[in-house]
């Protein structure tokens, strides 16, 4: 599951929804994979305003990845002003969000401590009946 997806996932329990601690989920014993893919500049440009940047920063620290800047890059920072080519900022974002994925491990809710297992890249958010 690509790192980007984690920016949109929270605890599945209805009782946790009202607590800010339920987002983002905290990776535990996560094994990461790097898969080279073509840069999708238009997508990154569109999704950037929808990202929760604080959550993104928390995630990179918890995964031991290079730290992100304090503020999200502006749209202009994504392109080289002369050539229109993707900037280094864009390439770094691409590598983090799109090429890095969690292959296995768990995702822990900061509110209820429940852990969701990730196996073969697929996260399991199915809750036992007493948590529904």
């Amino acid at each position: 599951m690509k790192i980007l997806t984690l920016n949109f996932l929270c605890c599945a329990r209805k009782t946790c929804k009202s607590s800010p601690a339920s987002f983002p989920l905290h990776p535990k014993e996560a094994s990461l994979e790097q898969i080279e893919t073509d840069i999708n500049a238009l997508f990154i440009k569109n999704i950037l305003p929808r990202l929760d940047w604080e959550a993104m920063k928390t995630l990179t620290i918890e995964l031991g990845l290079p730290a992100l800047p304090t503020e999200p890059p502006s749209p202009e920072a994504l392109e080289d002003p002369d050539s229109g080519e993707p900037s280094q900022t864009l390439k770094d974002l691409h590598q983090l969000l799109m090429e890095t994925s969690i292959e296995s491990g768990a995702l822990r809710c900061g509110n209820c401590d429940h852990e969701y297992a990730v196996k073969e890249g697929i996260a399991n958010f199915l809750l036992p009946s007493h948590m529904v």
Partner: protein
Amino acid sequence: MEYMVRFIQMHEEFRRPELDAIAELLEIDITWVAYDENSPFAIIAINQADDPTAAAKGLVSRAIMVSAVFELWGFGDSYDTLHADIKDRSSHVWPSYQECSFRFEMDAYHSSHTHAQRRGIFESLSYMAFRGPIVMSTPNERFTIFEDYDLDSNVPKQVLFGRYLGEGGRKAMSTYDLKKRSYISTTSMDAELSLVTANMAQCAPGKLAYDPFMGTGSFPVSCAHFGSAVFGSDLDGRSIRGKKGRSVMSNFKQYSTASLYFGGLAADLTNSPLHTRRFLDAIVCDPPYGVREGLKVLGHAKESLQHEVILNNGMKAHLQADYIPPKRPYSFLRMLDDIMDFSASRLVNGGRLCMWMPVAGAPEDADGDTAGEQETEEYAIPQHPALVVVSECTQYFNKWSRRLLTYKRIPDEEVDAEALAAVQLLRLQLESNGHADLGANDLNAFRKKYFQGFKTPLFQQFHPEPRDQSRTPEPST
């Protein structure tokens, strides 16, 4: 210049909405000059375009319901009026086509001609005085005479003439054909309508789509075909994982769109792990209809058994590696409402929800075995204050039908706040009733207040006259 769109004569209700969705996405302003549900020939005008020809080609190139688009050179209700219109409309451009190689073709709907008849018709166009060579296989220009006949009629009711510009998007159907796909199941939707659905959802590069009932990924691969990034979830994780190298991922790899697939999750829509904020461009789904197999969500069927289970060895059951959470039956109508609520709170402004649902008439079983005790009930079009209905298109099978509903998320400023508060209050009430949602009273109260019947003004806007009286379902009392 006006353009003639040559549609296929199937899935008629999908044709105009699909093209309208694409036009809106590509910001091409079109006007429907002529459209008839019973004819494959439609005429559109393209307004305020710098290059209308390029716009026309771009518009249809991804339309699955379109065979091709033509520059309209003339039309009429007879050959006499056609020739007069051709001279009127197009004579000023004939000089540009004097020298190029060309060929004429005939497209007769509900009729056919002998070679000699066709030749005669082509020769009647000699007043255009094209001097270029006639080349059959790859001419510079192709011109087509279109004839539209009523079934069993000898005389065409309409004839048109046009210059070929470009083909529609139907080639994609062959690429995505289920027979060639690496991983399918009984729930996989056919390529044609999955691609149409992705068009209705305005999937395009730079966008993010989500399917909460992903199954084997039919909708996600169609979204990715048009360049949208996509991810999905399903209550059944095995269906995402697949086996022996065949999985949702292997499908994306087959179509070389794996970079657009952001992953699959095992999840229940009614206990969704998706953060409650507005970030999706499209939600595309074919929810389980709950007739044959029984629609299920997380939870135990017996409310008394919804407690934590401790095994004999003192360990918690749900923490074991092989634990499978229990599921319970759920009402289809409530699921529709859950999808609406979910979509309203996750779609960005202008984002689209495309959802398939069954129509009354016969059981879900396509074999049409009406001896079964459960018939699909008549389901009215679900409503939500933040989602406006864009289109409703029905696919007719032999004894039943299903329809694609497309909604658009309107900006918060345009949402009726009172209606929204009322909907949310009712949802909370239903929630606190626990499993009592399966009671008929609760369902009826829900249905009466927030669902509208078949013969609503909105329904009539899309269906001014019943297409086929024998197929129109009777409203339930």
